[in-house]
Structures are given as C-alpha cells and as structure tokens.
C-alpha cells in the first residue's frame, strides 16, 4: 500500500496530467449518466432511499443480535462461520482453509474486503496463488496494480493500455484492441482455471440473518463460477453487511445496482444458502463465511459516526465526487477511495495516517445527495475532522488530535478572538480596507492559481453606518 501519507504528492501528479484528467472525467460522466437514467423520478428515488436508509439503520440498531442470528442460521445450513478482528486474522483463516483443502490456488470473484485485508499478498507469502476472475480485477492483477474504484477496478485504464497489457502478459495473445476479443481472451484463460481449482473466494453484498443466506450480485458469471465450481467456497465480508429479513433485500438491491452501474438488476444474482446437499450434483462441498471487523466496531461505537456502516458499497459517491474525478482512485492510497474511503479509512488505518484524506473535501455535498442509503457524508467528514483535531468531545478515536497543527489551531484561536469581538472586528475591517494598497501579492497557496484577495475601499459595516440612519 503506498499509503495516504503521500496523498498530496499523488494528487499533484494526477491533476498535472491532462490525459488522466480527461479520462477520469469521461468515465465519471458516463457512470453518472447511467445512474441518472435509472432514477428519472426524483420523488420516487427519495422514497426508495428513505426506505433503504431505514432498513440499514434498523439492521445496525440490532447488529450484535443479527450477527448471532446469522451465525446460528448459517451454521444450521451447513455454512461454517469464522470471525476475524484484523486483516491478519482473516487472511490466516483463509490460508488455513485453503491448505486443509489441499489447494495451491484461490480463484477470486470480486471482493473489496479481500482487497482490504490484502489477501493476495498474504496468500502469496503462504505459497498459495491467487487469481482474480472479475475482468476488471484480472486486468489490475495482470498490471500488478490495485483497484482504483470499488465497482470498476480498472476504470483508470484505457482500452489500448489493456490491449498492450494482454499482449505482453498473457502467453500466446497478439495485440488487439477489440473489447470483445479482449474479454474473450480473459474468459478463456479463467475458464481453464475454474475447472481445476479447489478453492473459490467471493465477497457478499448482503447477508440475511433469518434465513442464513448470502447474496452476491455480479455481471460476468465469474462470481457464480467461484461460488459453485471449486470444492470449497470461502465468502468474506464486513460485519455490517447483515440485514434481518428477506424482505429487506429488494429495496437495497434496487438501490445498489442502479446506483452502482445504472442497471435495474445485474445479470447474475447469486443466493448462497448451503454447501452441496445429499443427492445434489454440483456446488461446493464446503462453504465458509469470514466476518471481518477491522475498524467497523469503532465506527459503530461512536453514534456520530455510525451511519458510516449503512454503506452498501455502490460507489455512487465516488462517481459524483469532484475530487475523485480530478485525482482518480490510486491517489488516495487506500483500498476504498473517494468519499466512502475518507469515511472508512480512518478506522482501518488510523486517524494519523489518513489526516490528509479527511481534509480533502470541499464539503460540496454531491456524495450525500446521491448516496442511496442517505449517509450524511459531509457531516461525517466534519466529525472526522474534529476527531483529527482532537476537538470532537465525547468518544475520542485512537490518535484523536493527531491532525493538529499548532499554526492552524493558533490561527483559528486568533480568528475567533477577533470575530467574536465586534468592536475589534470593526477596527480590523477599517484598517484592512484603508491599507488595501499594502495587500500582499503572494497569499500562500491561494495565489498559486488565483489573483490575490484585495479588500474593498470601505467595509459594508461602514457603508451601512454612513449612508443611512439604520441601527
């Protein structure tokens, strides 16, 4: 992980690259238009997202109970449940299951949680191979990169780059930039692997507690292959993904696929409710679910931040984010980029490591406006800024205050000292306007790209006092 420590540098590099800028803009425009076409009626959208929000809040309010219920029902269905507090524990659980199954390769469907725990690294270190079977993830893996978007992992790559990559990295493939051919090449390679791999891995979109079912949406069919062809299927997800009842699923799915890819429904909808049963001809012999915490309990504890866990990982906030659109996903240096990444990463990587992320927002509110489960993203970012400054009061996150810069704190103290004293403030205004000729031409970062700020000849206070008899 190149870590958000280098965020500024990364961002600078990307904004200086017009080709990347244009490509991100084009991709985000495309995704925004597709989503918008799915929600033509804003009132209906508002009603649906209010329902989605209510379902997520209802589930979170009962999270500990639902997790117990989920575990009991999954176990009853023959699905083995594992709890992991840290990424390391999650990886170890998966390594152990794979070894026990005698596997030396894990074929993976798309799973952001597996990225979050850096599973591929851990597998490699344990002498086990990992093969991404989602086309976007496959491209990213071939290139030795990480996903730059939680739904479209390879959105940062052009068709030509992918064509070159395939010609270079896939044995026996000649250069072609026909998208159809590229997809067929990828499919051929992956089909071979599915046939003789012992372990398949997938994520989970929603887990249903009352039935003990895991739901997984996808478009390529690779998810279905990963979860049905190998002898062992391991699913991994965060502890927040549970809902109580089956009836909670349809609104969330209607919101998820429309917000994510602009589809009313995905091509595949997988229900995983048990391993192969007596007399069944196919399906995995074992199904495991790894439930990961990794900072989620911390998001849960502080009620001001709990809404973070409502997220259904649709990626709409990224597609609509003017910052993400300018810098792309890699610049963040986190598994989850964009607004959702700014909300979850401080809990996963620590406030200190992510202090530049929580400030990297103009709080424009585009994310909160499209979020299908109404997470008040700007409010949560402001709350995280307070945590970073150590001014949140109440529950303090570990490393609260680590983003504090003495100069900035001092500046705000002085500012408050001036702006809370009307007389002093008017005197300041009087001199600032009278001495406007002395306004510096260089005003820090402001004047990098802007003309200097110059006060007017007289303040509004003065003009109001002088021109009228108003009080």
């Amino acid at each position, binding site marked *: 992980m190149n870590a958000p420590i280098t965020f500024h540098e990364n*961002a600078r590099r990307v904004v200086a690259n017009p080709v990347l800028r244009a490509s991100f803009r084009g991709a985000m425009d495309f995704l925004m238009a597709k989503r918008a076409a799915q929600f033509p009626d804003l009132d209906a959208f508002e009603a649906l997202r209010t329902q989605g929000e209510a379902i997520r809040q209802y589930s979170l309010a009962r999270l500990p109970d639902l997790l117990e219920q989920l575990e009991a029902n999954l176990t009853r269905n023959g699905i083995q449940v594992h709890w992991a507090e840290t990424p390391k524990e999650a990886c170890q659980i998966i390594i152990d299951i794979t070894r026990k199954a005698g596997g030396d390769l894990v074929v993976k469907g798309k799973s952001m949680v597996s990225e979050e725990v850096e599973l591929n690294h851990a597998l490699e270190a344990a002498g086990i191979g990992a093969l991404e079977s989602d086309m976007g993830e496959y491209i990213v893996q071939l290139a030795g990169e990480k996903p730059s978007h939680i739904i479209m992992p390879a959105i940062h790559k052009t068709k030509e780059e992918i064509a070159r990559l395939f010609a270079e990295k896939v044995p026996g493939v000649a250069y072609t930039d026909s998208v159809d051919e590229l997809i067929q090449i990828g499919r051929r390679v992956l089909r071979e692997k599915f046939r003789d791999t012992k372990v398949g891995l997938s994520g989970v979109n929603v887990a249903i507690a009352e039935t003990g079912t895991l739901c997984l949406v996808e478009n390529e069919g690779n998810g279905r292959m990963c979860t049905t062809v190998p002898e062992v299927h391991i699913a991994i997800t965060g502890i927040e993904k549970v809902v109580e009842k089956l009836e909670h699923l349809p609104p969330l799915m209607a919101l998820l696929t429309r917000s994510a890819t602009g589809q009313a429904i995905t091509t595949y909808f997988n229900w995983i409710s048990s391993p192969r049963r007596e007399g069944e001809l196919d399906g995995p012999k074992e199904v495991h679910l790894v439930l990961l915490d990794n900072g989620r309990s911390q998001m849960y504890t502080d009620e001001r931040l709990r809404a973070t866990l409502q997220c259904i990982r649709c990626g709409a906030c990224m597609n609509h984010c003017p910052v993400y659109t300018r810098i792309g996903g890699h610049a963040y240096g986190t598994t989850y980029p964009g607004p959702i990444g700014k909300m979850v990463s401080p809990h996963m990587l620590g406030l200190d490591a992510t202090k530049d992320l929580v400030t990297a927002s103009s709080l424009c509110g585009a994310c909160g406006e499209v979020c299908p489960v109404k997470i008040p993203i700007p409010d949560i970012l402001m709350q995280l800024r307070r945590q970073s400054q150590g*001014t949140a009061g109440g529950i303090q996150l570990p490393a609260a205050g680590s983003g504090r810069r003495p100069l900035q704190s001092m500046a705000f103290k002085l500012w408050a000292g001036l702006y809370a004293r009307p007389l002093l403030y008017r005197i300041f205004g009087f001199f600032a306007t009278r001495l406007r000729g002395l306004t510096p031409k260089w005003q820090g970062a402001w004047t990098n*790209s802007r003309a200097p700020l110059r006060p007017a000849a007289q303040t509004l206070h003065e003009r109001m006092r002088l021109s009228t008899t*108003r009080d």
Partner: protein
Amino acid sequence: MTAAHNSPRRYSEKPSDVYLFGTCVLDLFDPEAGVSAVQLLEREGIRVHYPQDQTCCGQPAYTSGFPDEARAVAKAQLTLFPGTWPVIVPSGSCAGMMRHHWPRLFADDLTNLPRAESIASRTFELTEFLLNVLHVEWKPSAKQKPETVVLHTSCSARREMNTHVHARALLAKFGDVEVKQQEHEAECCGFGGSFSVKHPEISAAMASDKADALEATGATTLVSADAGCLLNLNGTLEKRGSALRGQHIATYFWNKVKEGA
C-alpha cells in the same frame, strides 16, 4: 445533510422589517453586494436593519474541525437578531450555516439553543426571500438590449437552500436576460473554505475546470449568490487573464431593477 434540507418551506406574509446579515466575506471584499441587497429590499417597502455588531456565521472554523471557535463567533451573533423579523443573508452557504448548522452547533447549550433555533427558522437566503416572500415584480429593462448571463450556484447554496431554483426564477423575470447553461453546472467550483489552501492543486483543478465551463458558454456576465465561490472564481478568472468576471447576484439585480425603473 439532514432530512430537513430541501424540504418545502412555508413562507409567511411580507414583513415590514428585516435584518440583514451581510456576511464577513461581503463585508470586507464586496460591500457593494450588501448595499445592493439593502436597496432591493427597500425598493419593496421593507425597512432593513443592519446590526453593527455582526461579524461572521462561524462557518470557516465549523467546517475545519474547530467547533469551539465556531461557537464563540456564532454566539456573538445570537443576541443581534431578536424578535421575529426575518434575517436575510446574501450568500447561500452562510445562510445554510445559520439555517441548518447553528441549531446543531448549539445543541448542547440550552441557554443559546433557543436563540440559534429562532434565527435559523427566520433565516432566508436573499434570492429565496425576494422570490417566495416578497414576490418581486421586476420588469424587463427599457433598454431592451438582450444579454447573456451564466449563473454559478454554489454547493451548499443549492443543496441546502435551493438557491439555483430561486435565482433562476428571478433571472427569468427580466425578459431580456438569456441564461446560459454551463457544463457540469451542479459541480463544486473548488472553494470549500480551508480546502482551497490545504489541497491547493485539487482546488485549482476544480476551479480551472469551472472557469473553462463558464467561459465556454460565451456569456458576457457571470452571477452568483454565494460570496465564497465568487472570491474563488474571480481570483481564478483574473489570474488566467479572462475577460469574464463574476458579480454578486444582488448587485446584478439592483443594476437591472434600477435601469428598469
């Protein structure tokens, strides 16, 4: 953003008196806009009161993670607007701060909360007030030289105060103004208070894309109802040597209305 945002607001009868909260940005950098706001209100027969002790709504500290400082500054405003007169704010994001965030800022301060809530409930962004409370009747100007305008609506102004709707409706009252539509109109101009100096490259990229989009409309005039965005946009336009310059919508309206009278 809470559920209250953008929920339909009930408007009362036209009042006899209002307060003007001029905002710290207009105070120092664009007092003309504040004066224009007063003139527009007075033209409708309203008495305007401008408490001389006002300073700032506290937003810069609030959004940067300094709630104590924000509270200290906001608190100094709370006693300046007693009674029931509406508080008119000629800047969308400041109006949004007062209307939506003051009650939250003082949520744990039971002495000040009632005042904060009272002001919040009486806070109107200028264009909203002109349109929905005063129902201004503006005529096309006598000169009838059609002009093209492009309207920038800031993020909090549009998302918290619906300013884009109000400003557009007011512009439509003059028959001779053609409002051009810029690409990505709803997108942020990159100001974001401290964001603009903490992440100057990203902010500059957003501002320059915005300036491109505004210039590409070919409009001769840029107007906005948000003081912060105007600082950012005008600074950017000036630095790049553009002929386009943003004007506060109050100033623009006053000039038009004056002409038409």
